[in-house]
Every structure is written in structure tokens, then in C-alpha cells.
């Protein structure tokens, strides 16, 4: 019995493997796409530093410059004034310009209002935002430090010069400590922030989309067999309809595992995207592939012919990818789409992989995996029901 299942499923896989489009779709395309996304977004191994124009003089300015350089996110160029900085951003020489007020140190000490201007090239919005946050963070620290200094200074009622001296040393030590801790904190938090997230996101999102696509390919194979009549030869052999269905869906499932596995392997080997711990990733990968097989079942169930299947598949996969976060990030979807996206395979899978990547064991991970398996069951049952009906025609 198991033997027959393996024989049939293996033939299905082999048939897919032999079609040229299959290898293009499952291996070449993931490879190219990974490269493309990787280069467009920056990958994770090496983040090209953004050119940053910095206007300002004095210690604080130098300190901000050093902080940005240190983060690896920015390559800082000093510029003399605001207008030249603005020009640099307009011409693309700099992605972001930070314009600090003149005589910043004395303004800080005199408690004058501070105005820091930041200009960002909108086309590099994502990463510009990171730099902006870095600077803002720094300025907030500066503000806090100033408050502390002022507080300290106001509270000063030194009776001796020595007392004054020691109080100042204390304050200085405190301020310096605060500055340093703050800047280190900022660095680590932001440097491992957004850009990796986006790339890892798309590696997963496209992976899911392609897994759905290969499931429809496999589903097409089943419809072909119904049309050719090979299914009937199988059923005239000692193969019960149930056994046949199990074999067909097993093949679809393995196809999904292969496709998603290809994405996971390429993106992690080439760009070091972490999908998470293998043991955490595997169940989600299996669940996603199963859900894709279930999708194959639904497509088989509603298609009368191969042409119809091809059209329906494309429409379904595109709509689900648009709604389910395979085209743009889930968080950016408008409200209605957020609700609809809960009906897509993409959303649940992407969310689950986001959690495995973070090493999280949030209950939502189990929920998402469970939903994917449930979707798989629904699709397989529906597809089986429909196929079984067609076997008898």
C-alpha cells in the first residue's frame, strides 16, 4: 500500500522535475529573485553605508559624525552650510543631511532652543529613517544631559573652589557616562534593525508565493492525467481512489517542501537571512507546503480543464499575494486588506516565519502553523471530494 503511494508520488515528482519550467521556477527563479532583492535592499552581510552630509562644527557635531560612522550605516561628509547640504541631497550625493545649529555647544549650555534639521532623500526612505532616528536619539540624550547639567548647576552652592571643582568633575563623569552608554545602546539597536528585516521579509514572502505557484503546477498535472485517462489506468490497477488521492497530495506536498526549501536555502546561503532555528522552521515549512498542497486541491476542485486551471491559479495566487503580504509588507496594508489577508495562505506563513526568525515562541507562531495545517486539510478534503466525483465520470 505504502509502496504504491510512493511509486505514484515519485512519478509525479519526477514528471515535474523533468519539465524544464519546473527547474526554472523552483531553482533558477528563487536564485535570481534572491539576488535581485538582496541587491535592491542591501542584503544583510554587508550594508553599504549611506552617504550622509553633516553640517556643524564642534565636539557634539564630531561626536554625532563618529556615532554614525561607527554604526556602519553611514559615511559622513562634513559640509560647510545648510544650502550645500540640501544641494547634496537633491543631487543624490548624500541620502540624508543633518544640519546642526551653529555654536551648538554654547547654545546647549545657554539653554537656547535647539533646531536640528534633517533632510532625507525620499527614495531611500527606509534607511534614511534609521539615520534620522540615530540623530534624534542622540539629540534626546543631549537634551537629557543638558537638563541634568542645568539641574546640577542650579543646585550648586559651592562654598569653596575645591568643592566646586569636585562637583564639576562628578557632573562631568555622570554626563560622559550617560553619553557613552546611550550611544552604544543606540548603535546595536538600530544596526540590526530595518534593512535585514525587509530582505528577510521578502525572501519569505516570495518563497510562499512561489510555493503556491508550484502547487498549481502539480495540480495541473493531476488535471492533465484526468484528461489523458492515465488516472483511469491507475484506478483500474489495484489502487483505490483513496490511495491515489493520498499519493497525489503527497506529491504536491513534497513539491512545496522542495520549493520553499530552495528559497530558504538560497536566501540563507547567499545573504545569510536567518529563517530561524531549523527545528522551529521545519514545522512551519511543512505546514506551508501542506497548505500549498491544499490550495492545489482547491484549484483542482474548481477547474474543469487545464486552461481554466492555469487562469484561476494565476488570479488566485496574485490576489492572495497582494492581500497576504507577498507583494508589500503586511503592516502597510490598509484596514480592509488586513481583514481579508487572514484568508490567505501567505499571511499566516509569513507571520509564522517572522516569528521563527526572531527565535520567538509567541503563541501566535503555533496559531499560524495550526491555521496553515487546517487550511491544508480543508483544501485536500475539498480536492479529494471533487476528484473522487470526477473519477467516476
Amino acid at each position, binding site marked *: 500500500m505504502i*509502496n*504504491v503511494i510512493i*511509486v*505514484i508520488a515519485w*512519478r509525479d515528482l519526477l*514528471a515535474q522535475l*523533468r*519539465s524544464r519550467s519546473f527547474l526554472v521556477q523552483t531553482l533558477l527563479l528563487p536564485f535570481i529573485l534572491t539576488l535581485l532583492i538582496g541587491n535592491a535592499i542591501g542584503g544583510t552581510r554587508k550594508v553599504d553605508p549611506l552617504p550622509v552630509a553633516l553640517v556643524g562644527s564642534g565636539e557634539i557635531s564630531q561626536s554625532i559624525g563618529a556615532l554614525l560612522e561607527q554604526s556602519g550605516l553611514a559615511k559622513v561628509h562634513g559640509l560647510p552650510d545648510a544650502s550645500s547640504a540640501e544641494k547634496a541631497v537633491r543631487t543624490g550625493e548624500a541620502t540624508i543631511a543633518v544640519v546642526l545649529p551653529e555654536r551648538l555647544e554654547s547654545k546647549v549650555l545657554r539653554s537656547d532652543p535647539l533646531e536640528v534639521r534633517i533632510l532625507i532623500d525620499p527614495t531611500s526612505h527606509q534607511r534614511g529613517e534609521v539615520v534620522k532616528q540615530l540623530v534624534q536619539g542622540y539629540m534626546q540624550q543631549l537634551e537629557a544631559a543638558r537638563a541634568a547639567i542645568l539641574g546640577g548647576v542650579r543646585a550648586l552652592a559651592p562654598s569653596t573652589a575645591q568643592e566646586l571643582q569636585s562637583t564639576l568633575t562628578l557632573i562631568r563623569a555622570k554626563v560622559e557616562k550617560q553619553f557613552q552608554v546611550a550611544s552604544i545602546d543606540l548603535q546595536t539597536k538600530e544596526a540590526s534593525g530595518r534593512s535585514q528585516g525587509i530582505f528577510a521579509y521578502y525572501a519569505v514572502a516570495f518563497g510562499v508565493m512561489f510555493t503556491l505557484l508550484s502547487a498549481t503546477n502539480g495540480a495541473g498535472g493531476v488535471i492533465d492525467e484526468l484528461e*489523458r*485517462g*492515465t488516472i*483511469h*489506468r*491507475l*484506478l*483500474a*490497477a*489495484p*489502487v483505490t481512489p483513496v490511495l491515489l488521492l493520498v499519493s497525489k497530495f503527497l506529491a504536491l506536498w513534497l513539491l512545496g517542501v522542495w520549493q520553499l526549501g530552495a528559497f530558504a536555502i538560497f536566501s540563507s546561503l547567499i545573504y545569510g537571512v536567518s529563517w530561524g532555528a531549523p527545528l522551529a522552521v521545519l514545522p512551519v515549512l511543512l505546514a506551508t507546503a501542506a497548505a500549498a498542497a491544499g490550495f492545489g486541491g482547491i484549484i483542482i476542485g474548481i477547474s474543469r480543464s487545464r486552461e481554466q486551471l492555469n487562469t484561476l491559479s494565476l488570479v488566485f495566487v496574485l490576489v492572495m499575494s497582494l492581500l497576504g503580504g507577498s507583494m508589500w509588507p503586511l503592516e502597510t496594508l490598509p484596514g480592509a486588506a488586513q481583514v481579508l489577508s487572514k484568508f490567505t495562505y501567505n499571511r499566516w506563513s509569513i507571520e509564522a516565519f517572522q516569528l521563527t526568525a526572531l527565535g520567538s515562541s509567541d503563541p501566535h507562531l503555533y496559531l499560524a502553523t495550526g491555521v496553515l495545517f487546517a487550511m491544508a486539510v480543508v483544501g485536500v478534503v475539498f480536492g479529494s471530494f471533487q476528484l473522487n466525483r470526477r*473519477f*467516476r*465520470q
Partner: protein
Amino acid sequence: MALLMPTLETPRPFFLLMIYGTMLGVVLVVKNLQKRYDKFIAVHDVSFHVQRGEVYGLLGPNGAGKSSTIRVLSCLAKPDSGSVVIDGSDIVQEQAKVKRTIGIVPQDFALYDDFSALENLVFFGRLYGISGRDLKIRAQELLEAVGLLERSHEAVGTFSGGMKRRINIAAGLMHKPKMLYLDEPTVGIDPQSRRKILDLVKTLNASGLTVLYTTHYMEEAEELCHRIGVIDQGKIIAEGTLAQMRQLAGETAPIRLELREPLAASQLEQLKTLVDEIIAEENTLTLFARDPKDALSGILQMLSSFGAHVHHLELDEPDLETVFLKLTGRRLRD
């Protein structure tokens, strides 16, 4: 004793059929078979049996219900009523056993185009649990038998229609069935391939294989089949050996005439007085007369008195076509 008592689960007719089947060397017994597609009845009330070692022909025009009958006999569709017993096993209750007894060669090529001939055979063989050396040997044997050993590694998709037909047959034989169904195995191929297939069927039969052969070519039925059932509109309308069929046609042999223009109804009426029966299809007439040679001069005289021009005249031996024409008033092929 228990064996002879019908049990509750086995209704009496089934039981009797099984006894009948095993005792008389009958491999297949079809009794009052009916098959419907929704409301349309494709197979009305078909009964026949096939003896061990025989080639039984189901001869009928397009849409007669041949393939529908074969589908039921292949366990691909349940009979709506009636019963089928194959080698002593009921087709509904003992499917697993039945499936190992029969080999099927469907009307359409049921093969994987992107796999080689050998791979196709090996795959179908595996479904029956054949493996290892046996599997290889069996596949090679069959490839040789159908004359495709040299091309065994080529994809079936690149084969000609005739070659595909032959592989289609080989695929049905992998598990050494006792009985083979061949559903119109010569449709759409060249005379040479057809010859090969007919010879193959004869060889297989000579080696002991029982064959159920459907066709709408009467020549094939005449050449191959020990017994023939003529099927039309879901019913067997005549059955017997070729000799019995000829007798059924009686002495009557058809005279086929082609006229330049069709005859008027009144003229046909007049002509009818000279013969037993007339079938008129536009300007083609088929006349049945008890003694065709005697009747002929009178017929031609009458036609010339009508001023009708005879293009073509043919006197046939009574054949299956005649039987079919006589029974249905239609030709086997249109």
C-alpha cells in the same frame, strides 16, 4: 454444503452466476447490465459471457455503449443495475481480486508522454506489486512482443499513433492478466500498425489470454473474434459466432446501388415489391433480396423505367455489416 447455500450477503442471482462462471470455464459473465450518466442511459440491458481462451467481440457504432460497458467491467464505474462476475469474483464486492485478473487497454492512450516506453511499463508494473528483476524482464518481454524494444528508451510522446497503441497494449499486460479488454485498439492508425496489432492479439490469444475486443470495424470482428455481440444504443441486438451471424442475415445479401439522384417516395414503394427490404440514404440504396442474383435484372429494369442512372453497383456476401443493417436499418459507420 455451506458452499452451495446462498448466504444472506450474496443474493441468489450472484451466487448462481459465480457457480456458472467457475463451472463452465466462463471467465466473464455480464447480466442485465445498466449504466447511466445522470438521466441518459448509455448501457440499457447488456448480457453476455466470455469463455476462457476466447476472443469475444463487442461490435457497434459510435456511441453504442462499448466504452461505457468496458468502464464498468474495469471497476471504473459502478453498474447502476445488473451484475458482472469475473473469474468467479463479483465486480463490486471483490474489486481487488477482479483488478488483478483483468488488464485494460483504454480507447485513449493512457500513457505518460514525458516518460520512455520502458519507464511507462515499469511504472504500471509497480502498481501491481511487481519489482526488481521480474519487473525488468517482463517489461523487456512485452517491448519485444510489441516490436518496440529498440525504442524502449524514447519518450512515448515522440511515438507515432501506431506505436503508442502498441505500448498502450503492453501496459495492460504487465501483470499477466487472465483477461484483456481492448477498447477499439486500432482507431486512427495506419494499415501496417493495425496489422501488427491484430496479429499481436491473435498471438496473445493463442498463448491462452482471454480477450474482450470492442470495435466498430466489422472486418476486425470477423477476423479476430470467436463470438461477437452486436451492440447498438446500449443493447446487444445479436450475438453468436460469425457463422451464426451469417445465418442471421439469412440468404439475404445486400445489393448496393449508387444513383445519380435519389428516388421519389412512390418509386421506392414500387421498388419494394421486388425485394424484402430497402434502405435508402440519399442516392445510395441498399436492397435486401432472398436471391439477389435473380432479383437484380428486375430491379435494374424498373430503375431504367424510372429513368434513374446507376453509378455503381455492388453485390455483397452477407457479412456483419449486413447483419447490422438488417437489424438496425443503419450502417456501422457513417
